[in-house]
């Protein structure tokens, strides 16, 4: 049953994505750990972490594409789920520091000692176990998304209104996590991690391990997402995207379908955040900023909305550009990012993958874009009901 589910989603595109991921999973560890440092084929440990970060963003973009590309819910608050997952992992890593903090308190993290707290708040209990933190990485974003979606979808808040209140949600969380008395480190967030599962978090081996874990999470999420899209459930989701009222009149409970995709997407975003934190070494409230949610939307738009593979491609490309330009031409980056938003929406409504499909369709002997374009959104009909 499960195998069939996964196999169903395996088309040519999925095969390509999984092959590339598998190649990365083999080549990068070999080039980092085995190839000697002087060799031109050597990949530095810094690059591995950078790649891992991109892949975490790719997972976030994949989660976003699932709801935006296939269900038509434009979330401007997915960074909230990402950051919540990150905080859950960060809390585990904080507890692992133990007495090695600046103040040497075996139980309380440094910032609590600094604030003169006497004991651990109840919501920190349990985070010294990895399994508990791992469950929380899924449960906290999932529960928030479920509660939020439960209310929002049943009240039939749609389109732009939904986008704006998702933005309000992440903004409220941003303000909340900035407060010192919330017990999440306030402005500085959680940082100074020492080890994960007993391994030194700075060691090259651990870094490669985290990179592999990210690839595994991304591949699994991709298979789940494409499995869903190919299933009957996926057809209903796409139908909801295109005309929700018609699907409702046909007797489907559209709210439940939306809620399922929404919650699943939030869990994926949480996993992405949890893998992101040990690789960059810090989580702070700025991850909740509405701007970062909107930036994630543009990754999806650049790669191609409603293509899954496009989301991954867009996230990696845009973030690579960001790393490059913020280093080389810092002034230029915001112009480039802003321009990207405008140009992609005006000229590339289907993103890079859509462009590729268009170009191959022009060639006389190509098989045609139908196989690929099948699931691509029909932008106009999908969005008109927004207003």
């Amino acid at each position: 049953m499960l195998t069939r589910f996964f196999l169903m989603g395996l088309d040519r595109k999925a095969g390509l994505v999984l092959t590339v991921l598998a190649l990365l999973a083999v080549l990068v560890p070999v080039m980092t750990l085995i190839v000697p440092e002087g060799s031109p084929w050597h990949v530095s440990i810094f690059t591995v972490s950078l790649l891992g970060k991109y892949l975490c963003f790719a997972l976030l973009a994949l989660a976003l594409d699932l709801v935006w590309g296939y269900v038509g819910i434009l979330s401007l608050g997915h960074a909230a789920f990402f950051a919540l997952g990150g905080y859950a992992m960060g809390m585990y890593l904080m507890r692992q520091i133990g007495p090695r903090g600046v103040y040497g308190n075996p139980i309380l993290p440094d910032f609590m000692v600094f604030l003169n707290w006497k004991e651990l708040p109840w919501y920190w209990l349990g985070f010294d176990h990895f399994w508990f933190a791992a469950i929380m990485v899924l449960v906290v974003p999932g529960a928030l998304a479920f509660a939020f979606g439960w209310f929002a979808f049943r009240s039939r808040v749609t389109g732009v209104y939904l986008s704006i209140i998702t933005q309000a949600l992440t903004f409220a969380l941003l303000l909340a996590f900035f407060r010192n008395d919330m017990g999440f480190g306030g402005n500085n967030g959680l940082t100074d991690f020492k080890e994960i599962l007993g391994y030194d978090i700075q060691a090259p081996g651990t870094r490669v391990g985290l990179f592999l874990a990210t690839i595994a999470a991304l591949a699994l999420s991709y298979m789940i997402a494409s499995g869903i899209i190919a299933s009957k459930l996926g057809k209903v989701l796409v139908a909801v995207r295109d005309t929700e009222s018609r699907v409702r009149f046909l007797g489907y409970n559209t709210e439940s379908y939306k809620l399922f995709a929404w919650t699943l997407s939030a869990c994926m975003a949480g996993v992405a955040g949890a893998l992101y934190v040990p690789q960059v070494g810090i989580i702070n409230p700025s991850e909740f900023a509405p701007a970062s949610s909107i930036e994630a939307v543009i990754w999806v738009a650049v790669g191609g909305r409603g293509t899954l593979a496009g989301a991954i491609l867009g996230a990696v490309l845009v973030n690579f550009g960001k790393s490059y330009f913020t280093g080389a031409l810092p002034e230029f980056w915001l112009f480039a990012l802003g321009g990207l938003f405008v140009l992609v929406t005006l000229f590339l409504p289907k993103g890079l993958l859509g462009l590729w499909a268009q170009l191959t369709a022009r060639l006389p002997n190509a098989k045609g874009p139908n196989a690929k374009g099948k699931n691509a959104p029909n932008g106009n009909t999908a969005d008109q009901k927004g207003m």
Partner: protein
Amino acid sequence: MRRALRWLMAACVAIATTSAALAADLRPLVQTMGSGGYSGTEKALNQLSDAGDPAAVPVIEALQAGDLYVRKADGLVVIARKVGAGYALTDPLSGAALGEAAAGAIDRIKVNNAMRRAISAALGALTLMSPDPAVRRSAADAVFKSRDANALDALNTALAKEKDERIRRAMEQARAAVILTAGASDADTQAAVATLAGRGDRDALALLSMIAASGASDTAKTAAAAAVATVEQKLMFWGALQNLWYGLSLGSVLLLAAIGLAVTFGVMGVINMAHGEMVMIGAYTTFLVQQGLRTYAPGLTDLSVLLALPAAFLVSGGVGVIIERSVIRWLYGRPLETLLATWGLSLVLQQAVRSLFGPTNREVSAPSWMSGAFELGGLTITYGRLWIVVFAFAVFAALLVALKRTWFGLSIRAVTQNRPMANAMGIRTARVDALTFGLGSGIAGLAGVALSQIDNVSPNLGQSYIIDSFMVVVFGGVGNLWGTLVGALALGSLNKFLEPYAGAVLGKILVLIFIILFIQRRPRGLFALKGRAVEA
């Protein structure tokens, strides 16, 4: 009349002669300040204070500032201020210049902490007699704060002479505070309690509750406790009013920020995420206008805010028209794409301003008629805030008139309600679209002029308002200007009433959660459009 004048002249002469006589008496006292170490100085200080002559004020002030010295050559007490390598000497009483001296030729008269308190008490007592009413007033307030029993005699003397009603009241309150602190007969205490209850602010409350809890006599205690109750009630009333005023003030800021959005988002249905940047451009235009006036017409600087209004409207409106023609018109009917494209534009505009003006805050100074404050009962109202409230309502009224009573407004409404029909009636819909968007952006520019007075003019100015503006419009109901007004004022007041209990940040979070929940109940806002326009 003439008689009164003669009396006045006689009084002046009398005062002049006595003060001259006193000045003669003061000289030996001042001279003794320089001898006998701390205790000698303190003794002389007390005598100076007891003499009750305002002429001694500069001496004591110099002592407080550490400018009072003894000239080593002849032991004369002088005021010395550093000039270049040496010190310029002046006579402490007459203020006559006494030449210069090297640093080694004079000795500072040292002051310790115990004396500092005596100094401020002495200054308070002496300034009570000052001919300047403002000085007397602040002296009375200083005594009220210090509650120094030594000042009682001076207060009584000053009260006997005081003619100004308000200063008299301040002095009586100060006297009451001194009496209550020092302890006195029941009758005096009760009179003092009554006076303080009349003052009715937080300081009075603190003092009264101290009396109510202290070891004073029972009658005094009960009187104080009753007074505490009345004062608390009064404070609560004024506190509520003050909160209402703050709420109105914040509400009008929200209204200003949101009202342009009510046009672009509410009327046209365009999600303009670059709205905040239009506000920012308005603020920067104000800055430029002010800089220009400072350079070319310094006399007009006070009017810069007024001159900036049309400039900001035109600049922001112009940018709005360009944006509509170049980007937004291709995206009508695709609200989510519009959202992304305008977000991109907002990034570009922010970075452009950052590159042009730098990332730091720019200084926009308030004109003289917008600075200062006045008191209304227990309320303190700053002119700046008052003008912003007035301005917000004026803009709202003007927009309402423009939409309901002008040809342009009629075209806007026609295009909104039925585009093909409006087109068929000969309205150039494309032009109306551009101008409507320009109008909304221009109003955002006007908001920028007002916000430049109360917020930092920086490239991030718009960012801090964009989410609030959207909340206001969505809460009030899209497509309804009155909804925007009510939404802005309601959210502003809610925020300010939550603040004392929950703190600023938590208050804001609660408001956001409230809006999220509210949207669930009424997905179309407070004043939802009914009928066909809903599905359009």
